[in-house]
């Protein structure tokens, strides 16, 4: 069996799986050949290229079995809370309770891609008046109405205020269809006024103390609702323990990002890195397992780095990627064109920062929620991107626009301007729909042009 790091197709993975199994592969309960997920309708899997490590096999299986986990949790009597438009705050609270599972309905964003539009979710959203002028998260509406992709949560919690219009509008539509929602307000993060008490947030931004106090009071409302749902108290002790666990996930992810993005040869492909980062949002419905999955990935990556081995050549262009892609295949495409990911801002950098453990837990969470790059100005977000570009040594920035997304209309211009003026690195903006098959040649040409520019600049 060839154990050199590399990328393989789904078919190749299934052959490899058999070999590994015969060689004594040990897997968690959700393990198995990746190919079986195609039977669930996840047809895009057939067109992706995967990392060939056992650690990545576990990562993919973990991701693709979330629905089963949620059904099992319900069967065990656990309560399910849908944390909407919330990238990493309420899930930390929910997992501090032993009988609550948090789940991220917005993740339906990727269903049209993974099922290659065969699930009919976008059509359902269309029929409810939410057409393609909205971001692909509209698939979530279809998923709720059809009830076919996840169990309907016992409680829905949604942040509003300084969020995108797409999600706010769609969540309101959902509410109008009879799904009760607990709304909590996240205000636009602003600079403290002169003489106003200020607080430093995880990740480096600053906010007025009174904004932190406000968010804290909003999170207290959420805490009360969770307690009611769970039928038990969520005291500070439990919350602090939950924060410590969440930080464990975040530290592993930070290490994984640092090692992978700065390695001379790319040790883990962009696609697996994207999925690993997503685990930070709500732990894919199992926090402890998330930790184990990440540990194994880090071990694999470190082993590869120490051996000087990787999945791509050593002259690939180091790209910083902004916004997640609606079509996962584009991550493969970047690598086909000669690029690798060295730095990301997938809308939730704050969910990768550790939550302060020395503060009262509700205050720590409030600070973390306000550190969300999307709740402040695009200039703030661009500054954070610049800091990470320096840290990871990225050579170009790719802003991947999300079709219909309210923030993408204006932020790309600002981010591009700030990055160019601060760092003089090339910036390219592309738009990635849920299935890119028809525009693949054009996308490829644009990515190649960016990568050529990077390589030309190296010669100077």
């Amino acid at each position, binding site marked *: 069996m060839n154990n050199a790091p590399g990328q393989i197709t789904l078919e190749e993975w299934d052959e490899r799986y058999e070999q590994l199994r015969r060689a004594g592969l040990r897997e968690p309960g959700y393990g198995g050949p990746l190919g079986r997920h195609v039977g669930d309708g996840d047809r895009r899997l057939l067109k992706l290229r995967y990392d060939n490590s056992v650690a990545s096999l576990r990562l993919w299986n973990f991701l693709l079995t979330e629905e089963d986990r949620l059904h099992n949790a319900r069967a065990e009597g656990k309560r399910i809370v849908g944390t909407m438009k919330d990238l990493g705050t309420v899930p930390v609270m929910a997992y501090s309770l032993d009988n609550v599972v948090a789940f991220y309905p917005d993740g339906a964003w990727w269903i049209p891609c993974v099922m290659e539009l065969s699930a009919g979710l976008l059509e359902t959203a269309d029929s409810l*008046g939410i057409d393609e*002028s909205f971001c692909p998260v509209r698939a979530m509406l279809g998923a709720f109405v059809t009830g076919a992709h996840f169990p309907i949560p016992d409680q829905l919690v949604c942040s509003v205020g300084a969020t995108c219009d797409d999600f706010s*509008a769609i969540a309101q539509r959902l509410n109008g269809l009879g799904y009760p929602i607990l709304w909590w307000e996240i205000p636009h993060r602003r600079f403290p006024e002169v003489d106003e008490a200020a607080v430093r947030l995880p990740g480096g931004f600053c906010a007025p103390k009174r904004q932190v106090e406000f968010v804290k009071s909003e999170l207290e409302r959420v805490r009360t609702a969770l307690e009611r749902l769970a039928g038990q108290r969520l005291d500070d002790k439990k919350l602090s323990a939950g924060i410590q666990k969440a930080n464990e996930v975040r530290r592993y992810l930070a290490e994984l990002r640092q090692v992978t993005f700065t390695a001379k040869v790319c040790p883990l492909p962009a696609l697996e890195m994207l999925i690993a980062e997503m685990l930070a949002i709500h732990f894919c419905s199992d926090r402890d397992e998330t930790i184990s999955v990440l540990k194994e990935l880090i071990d694999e990556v470190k082993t590869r780095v120490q051996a000087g081995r990787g999945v791509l050549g050593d002259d690939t262009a180091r790209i910083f990627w902004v916004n997640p892609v609606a079509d996962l295949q584009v991550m493969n495409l970047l690598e086909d064109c000669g690029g690798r990911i060295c730095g990301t801002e997938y809308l939730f950098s704050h969910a990768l920062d550790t939550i302060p453990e020395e503060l009262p837990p509700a205050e720590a969470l409030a600070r973390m929620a306000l550190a969300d790059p999307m709740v402040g*100005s695009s*200039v703030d977000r661009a500054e954070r991107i610049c800091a990470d570009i320096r840290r990871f040594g990225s050579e170009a920035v790719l802003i991947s626009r999300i079709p219909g997304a*309210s923030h993408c209309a*204006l932020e790309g211009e600002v981010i591009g301007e700030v990055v160019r003026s601060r760092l003089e690195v090339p910036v390219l903006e592309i738009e990635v729909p849920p299935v890119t098959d028809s525009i693949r040649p054009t996308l490829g040409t644009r990515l190649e042009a960016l990568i050529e520019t990077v390589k030309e600049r190296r010669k100077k």
Partner: protein
Amino acid sequence: MKTIIYTCPYVPAEWIAAHGLRPSRIMPGAAGSTSSVGRTEGVCPYVRRFVNEVIMNTQASGVVVTTVCDQMRRAFDIIMRRCELPAFLMNVPSTWQSVAAHKLYLDELRRLGEFLVRLGGKSPSSRALAKVMLEYDTARTSVLATRGYLTSSQYSELIAEFNRDGKSGITTTINEKKPFTGGIPLAIIGGPLLREDFGIFDVVENSGGRIVLDAAETGERGMCAHFDRRRLRDEPLIELSNAYFGSIPDAFRRPNNQLYNWLKRELACREVRGIIFWRYIWCDIWHAELHRLKQWANLPVLDVDVSGDEQALTVRTTQRIHAFLEVLQ
């Protein structure tokens, strides 16, 4: 007197005026609509026009932008980068049912006050604020009293004029002694109108209808509630906050049932027989309400999606309004 411009109905003119500055709720027009925002696809045309209007404005001393929608919130970043005009971004919470949300709005008013003082305004005493509020309230009441006695376009233009110029420039003359009757009663519901869109009222009238409810953001819906006289005397700032944040119904609020409660009452008492739904392309906030409104209202709804690229109403929109009214005859 220094002028402070804004477009959001949740910015209280009284608060600016009480600081000794001139509030002007502007209504953007077509002029210079191509320059300031690089991209057009995905950008709400109203936001685009507002940004251009602010950048090209040479009279104003400051601009207030609010967070009622993501695009406006982000438009603030563009304004800050493209022009020198002092700008203030006011957090207007989407939630409204909690005390904390009201308190946040009130805090933001105080912060706005500090901004106005930095621009040369003077922090008002409660008494001074109450006096200004009373003047505005009286003027607003007289504007509202003209409803039915003016053509629908005159009435809505009067509201726009009141918003733009405050109490001073207002004419409350009722041209006709007898109220207007006739025409199929329609409502216009949705986002704000652009300056050149007032023609829609005449188009409706020429087609045999009459707008009896202007529930566009620039119409009656975007006006604050009448002030309670006792509270105005005792705690004017809190009353101001209640009348604006507590009362103006809008699609962006979460939940937004307040909007539907308001519409239910107004549509019924004005015996509305059809709705013109006014929305800008790329405006998710209003677009998402269209389907719900159609199911909820039990009235015919004409969806007018405005691209904002035209100088005025398109021939297509005019023809659709004709056809809509023909069906309602």
